């Protein structure tokens, strides 16, 4: 735990922002204000944050259907991201993408993606800038346990390994793919081990522990920047809520839900560690909490009060303007 205080504050802010944001979205969804299904990231905050604190704006990430956490951890614009979830004209994607397709290229967030596993080759492509242009960059793909069974993901790992590209394959093993358990769907049961088979080092760690994730990320990023190729990081942390909001979760027990909230809350674990080590005062974190609560509240209010896209925008930006 040799991080600077600034970095710790930064890390906590990213995680907490995700938590506050997602709890708010949950409420909004229940109220019926959100125009589509949403997939909440709560329980996995330490994964996105632990990876993204090690990345710069020039580094890229490619995200999933469960992308809000990745966006926030990569410092996407909170207001415009919220607007996008509400499909507003001033959303990051002009309201055309919605929750499952938020992108913020200005900070290297290459997009949420509603095709499971499709982001892995895209992340590999962004990493090609190192080979082709000699750029100093790293690219990370977030991949669910379920997505880890897609051909696209295996091919992407192999290609990154063959070309020694600076890619982090971040496996978010949250126990389930929709309603199907990882014990069932994952042949061999060892996602990180399968990745190693493609010739890259791997980590397998507790995804509710920010420091475990961040340490692995720091090592993997260093190797990648040096041109030593890809790594795989498997992070285990169950999601707290359903696959999507509204999922009755018949496939798991109430006890499971209680246990993870009690023992695997990434925010509690982080607070305990930094407070016990005397690195940050509890009160400083409380201030952050308050600040984020109001920031998120404001973003949501602003989004809800902002206009939907103009109907004329339906057919714009299919191609470059004037080229079709």
């Amino acid at each position, binding site marked *: 735990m040799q991080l600077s205080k600034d970095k710790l504050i930064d890390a906590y802010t990213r995680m907490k922002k995700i938590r506050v944001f997602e709890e708010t979205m949950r409420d909004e969804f229940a109220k019926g204000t959100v*125009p*589509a*299904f949403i997939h909440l990231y709560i329980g996995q905050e330490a994964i996105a944050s632990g990876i993204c604190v090690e990345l710069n704006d020039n580094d890229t990430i490619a995200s999933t259907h469960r992308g809000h956490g990745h966006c926030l951890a990569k410092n996407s614009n909170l207001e415009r991201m919220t607007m996008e979830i509400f*499909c*507003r004209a001033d959303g990051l*994607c002009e*309201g*055309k*993408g*919605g*929750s*499952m*397709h938020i992108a913020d290229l200005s900070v290297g967030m290459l997009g949420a*993606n*509603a*095709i*499971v*596993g*499709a982001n892995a080759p895209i992340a590999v492509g962004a990493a090609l800038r190192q080979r082709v242009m000699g750029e100093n960059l790293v690219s990370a793909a977030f991949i669910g346990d*379920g*997505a880890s*069974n*897609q*051909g*696209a993901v295996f091919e992407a790992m192999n290609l990154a390994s063959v070309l020694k590209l600076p890619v982090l394959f971040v496996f978010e093993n949250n126990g*389930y*793919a*929709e*309603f*199907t*358990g990882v*014990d*069932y*769907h*994952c*042949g061999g049961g060892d996602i990180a081990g399968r990745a190693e088979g493609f010739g890259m080092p791997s980590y397998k760690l507790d995804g509710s522990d920010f420091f475990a994730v961040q340490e692995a990320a720091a090592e993997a990023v260093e190797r990648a920047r040096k041109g030593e190729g890809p790594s795989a990081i498997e992070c285990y942390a169950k999601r707290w809520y359903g*696959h*999507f909001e509204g999922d009755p*979760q*018949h*496939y*798991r*027990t109430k006890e*499971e839900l209680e246990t993870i909230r009690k023992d695997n809350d990434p925010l509690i674990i982080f607070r305990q560690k930094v407070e016990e080590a005397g690195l940050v005062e509890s009160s400083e974190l409380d201030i952050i909490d308050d600040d984020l609560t109001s920031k998120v509240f404001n973003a949501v209010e602003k989004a809800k009060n902002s206009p*939907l*896209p103009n*109907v004329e*925008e*339906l*057919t714009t930006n*299919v191609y470059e303007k004037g080229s079709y």
Partner: protein
Amino acid sequence: MTVKTYREAIIEAMILEMKRDEKVFVIGEDISGGRGCEDFEGEAAGGPMGLTQGLWDEFGAKRVIDTPISETAIMGAAAGAALSGLRPIAELMFSDFFGVCFDQIYNQAAKFRFMYGDQGATPLVIRTMIGAGIGCGPQHSQSPYSIFANIPGLKVVTPSNPYDAKGLLISSIRDNDPVIFCEHKALLGMDGEVPDESYEVPLGKGKILKEGNDISIVAIGQMVGVVQNCIKSLEEKGISAEIIDPRSLSPFDDEMVYDSVEKTGRLLVLDESNPVCSFGSWITSMVSEEVFSSLKAPTKVLTPPHCPVPAAPNLEAAYLPDVETIISASENLKNYS
């Protein structure tokens, strides 16, 4: 006769056929749902849209097979199973995912009979969800049936109501060629009279929903309901429309359309697919070739514009052809001279 939903009609068709023929089985993601989890104790989910609810309880894990998220493996396994004598129903959760597994559908299953010299059949049904209208965004709202219909060796079915959904699915399961069965997500909750017993609606036979003299309107899938909402207005405007639901696109009941256009002299097609090389354009192209001399006005296809399906609800509403557009297009054709 009882009232059932489109969803219930589909489930019923599968249950009846699985009871009738032990070679029929269902394979896909989350179709029992949860049954694979070690500590599972709840009810089987039956897919995120409930389209396989109850199957696991009735037939168990040997014939209701949950898979990893691996559509290529699912479609390939289904193709291989069909080629070697089984009768798989494979679920492609959203038709938008065809891009990750299309090889197994179009280069394999669709070509086996021809390419292997008719040595065997490929009795495979791929059930998949199509359509826009409920806010699923660019990658979960598409209707790629025009692409499916382009492929020799595939059959393509697009039920527009619960009765047809059941009868067409039973026919598809009994068919000895690969069939892509397109279920429209906006219709899953639609009610209709559906007999309890087994019955077939044949592939390749359209249905005239309403006879008329001024204009032939062919509507596909969800568009059938939309055009039915136009009937009153059209009548008020003095336009007598003949409305055809082709029900299956491949094989397609071209004779029914030709006969109708020979009577009306005007053709409007309503199609939810992308416009370029759409099934609608195929219909008008055939009509313009085969019954040209009957045409009193230009043929007309209404589809969404050449763009992805947007997430924003107001844009999505504008994306789909609606009652107003249909009525004004019909008027234009009627008044053409």
